[in-house]
């Protein structure tokens, strides 16, 4: 065995180093010194993130007989996730340092890093064994994080719901995999792709594929595998929710793309596209329909993130380089927009413990900057120019239509009509903050922590710059 191939996994190794340093610091530092652990972690991770952007030669490479693969695209998506992760970490500093969480802040950051490691594996794997390991590494610690808020019942309920559905989903997923293995005789994506060419497998392979889609769709919260999402988002601590909604979803989306195109791309003249077609329509529509009724901000964003997942899937169904880059771009933009929203929600929750949409009435008067950030986030999520969300939506639709069939036009039209519904509920938030200012304002004026403000500034800058600055998208397209 050639040990040098571990060097291909630069990012994974780097992440492990960060993890170990944090772990060691947490373990051995004095009780007083652990107070700066969040900040230290952020710094370490920031350095790591920055290092990730250094371009290196020979970026296309396989390891472990092709179980693991890295490429410019993979590196790029990891970098994107890193950026999101960094923002989440910064956002969490205040929360992690709060009195109640203080003794467990080390755990929180360690678990975060571990799940990210799992996601790296999901993204890079080209073999289902590695994928499953990554998937479980990414999702099991999350259950613990969901339950982090020990004195809130909702947190426990969310954790129960999450762990039970996650286990069930992984069982189904593994069952599907076992069928795939039985039919194809391999768990390498490329070998599966070779084996399933043609149509000799009957319905079994389709059912197996459906189970696999279910397993990954669970992480992405595609309808109908999404039912856990809202409850978990609502119950989990806000920082965990924001992590769940963007990083975890982004990684799953990319992994989903890889699996569908590389392992099952040849199956029955792209049967997966039609399966996805239905799922996208369902996801976008159902997500939107649920979102319009929500009054709890986190729950509302949960449903919004469900419908956003549907839009992300348009990049998968496009099945071309443009789709891949549009998907990555969408994830990037989505990270900034959603994290901005969660940043505001978190700040308000930390300071006033308020989380209903009606609590946001008159926010523009008491906390104009928070309100402004929130509004930008909502506009970006709704796809309003000149904010980044507009560009990501436009590009993902463009890439989908590049696929060329008439059916895709119909799909995009449905998605576009759904953007109207989504605009409605995003505007509800804006309305609460800016228009419903008559009565008393439930949220008083407060000054949010530096860390929170820093995170929000980063998000706002991202929302404004990422769209207008074309090189970002251009780069993603050149590597896609």
């Amino acid at each position, binding site marked *: 065995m050639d040990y040098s191939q571990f060097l291909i996994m630069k990012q994974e190794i780097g992440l492990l180093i960060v993890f170990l340093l944090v772990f060691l610091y947490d373990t051995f530092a004095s009780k007083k010194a652990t107070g700066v652990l969040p900040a230290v972690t952020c710094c370490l991770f920031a350095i790591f993130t920055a290092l990730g952007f250094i371009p290196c030669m020979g970026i296309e490479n396989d390891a472990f007989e092709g179980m693991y693969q890295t490429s410019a695209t993979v590196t790029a998506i990891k970098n994107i996730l890193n950026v999101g992760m960094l923002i989440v970490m910064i956002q969490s500093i205040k929360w992690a340092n709060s009195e109640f969480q203080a003794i467990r802040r080390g755990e929180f950051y360690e678990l975060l890093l571990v799940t990210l490691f799992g996601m790296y594996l999901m993204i890079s794997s080209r073999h289902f064994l590695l994928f499953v390991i990554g998937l479980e590494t990414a999702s099991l610690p999350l259950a613990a994080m969901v339950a982090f808020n020990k004195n809130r019942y909702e947190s426990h309920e969310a954790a129960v*719901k999450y762990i039970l559905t996650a286990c069930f989903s992984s069982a189904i997923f593994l069952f599907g*995999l076992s069928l795939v293995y039985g039919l194809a005789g391999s768990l390498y994506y490329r070998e599966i792709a070779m084996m399933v060419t043609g149509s000799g497998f009957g319905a079994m392979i389709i059912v197996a594929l459906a189970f696999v889609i279910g397993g990954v769709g669970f992480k992405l919260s595609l309808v109908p595998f999404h039912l856990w999402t809202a409850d978990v988002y609502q*119950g989990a601590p806000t920082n965990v929710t924001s992590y769940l909604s963007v990083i975890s979803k982004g990684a799953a989306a990319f992994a989903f793309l890889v699996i569908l195109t590389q392992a099952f791309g040849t199956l029955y003249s792209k049967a997966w596209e039609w399966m996805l077609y239905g799922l996208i329509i369902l996801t976008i529509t159902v997500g939107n329909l649920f979102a319009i009724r929500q009054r709890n901000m986190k729950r509302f964003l949960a449903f919004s993130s469900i419908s956003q997942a549907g839009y992300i899937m348009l990049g998968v169904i496009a099945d071309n380089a443009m789709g891949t880059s549009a998907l990555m771009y969408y994830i990037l933009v989505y990270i900034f927009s959603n994290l901005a929203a969660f940043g505001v929600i978190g700040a308000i929750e930390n300071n006033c413990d308020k989380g209903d949409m009606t609590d946001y009435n008159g926010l523009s008067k008491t906390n104009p900057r928070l309100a402004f950030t929130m509004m930008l986030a909502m506009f970006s999520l709704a796809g309003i120019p000149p904010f980044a969300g507009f560009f990501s939506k436009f590009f993902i639709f463009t890439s989908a239509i590049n696929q060329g069939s008439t059916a895709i036009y119909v799909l995009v039209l449905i998605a576009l009509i759904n953007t109207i519904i989504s605009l409605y509920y995003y505007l509800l938030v804006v309305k609460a903050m800016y228009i419903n200012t008559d009565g008393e304002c439930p949220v008083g004026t407060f000054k949010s922590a530096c860390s929170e403000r820093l995170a929000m500034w980063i998000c706002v800058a991202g929302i404004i710059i990422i769209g207008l600055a074309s090189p970002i998208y251009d780069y993603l397209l050149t590597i896609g």
Partner: protein
Amino acid sequence: MGTIIWYLIPALVMFCCGVYGFMTRRNMIAMLISLELMLNAVDINFVVFNRYLYPGQLDGMMFTLFAIAIAAAETALAIAIIINIYRSAKNIDVRDVTRMKF
């Protein structure tokens, strides 16, 4: 093909039993047990496929090993969370864990 069916059918039955149990039992621990059934059925599948269809490789076997480990981790975590909820709600009936909905 003849023999393999005799392994696969029980595995499928086991899986279905697990699913059924998971959906009908009220006690969360019982649900976990059902889950274990499902995962074990999957393990059987992998092993059987490996042994009978692709005897020249070890992919299925290895996968099973990992799956067992993962199942253990899942169960451990799940039990921890169930204990947590028991502490706060004094109850582990899954149908009572429905405060957040709609």
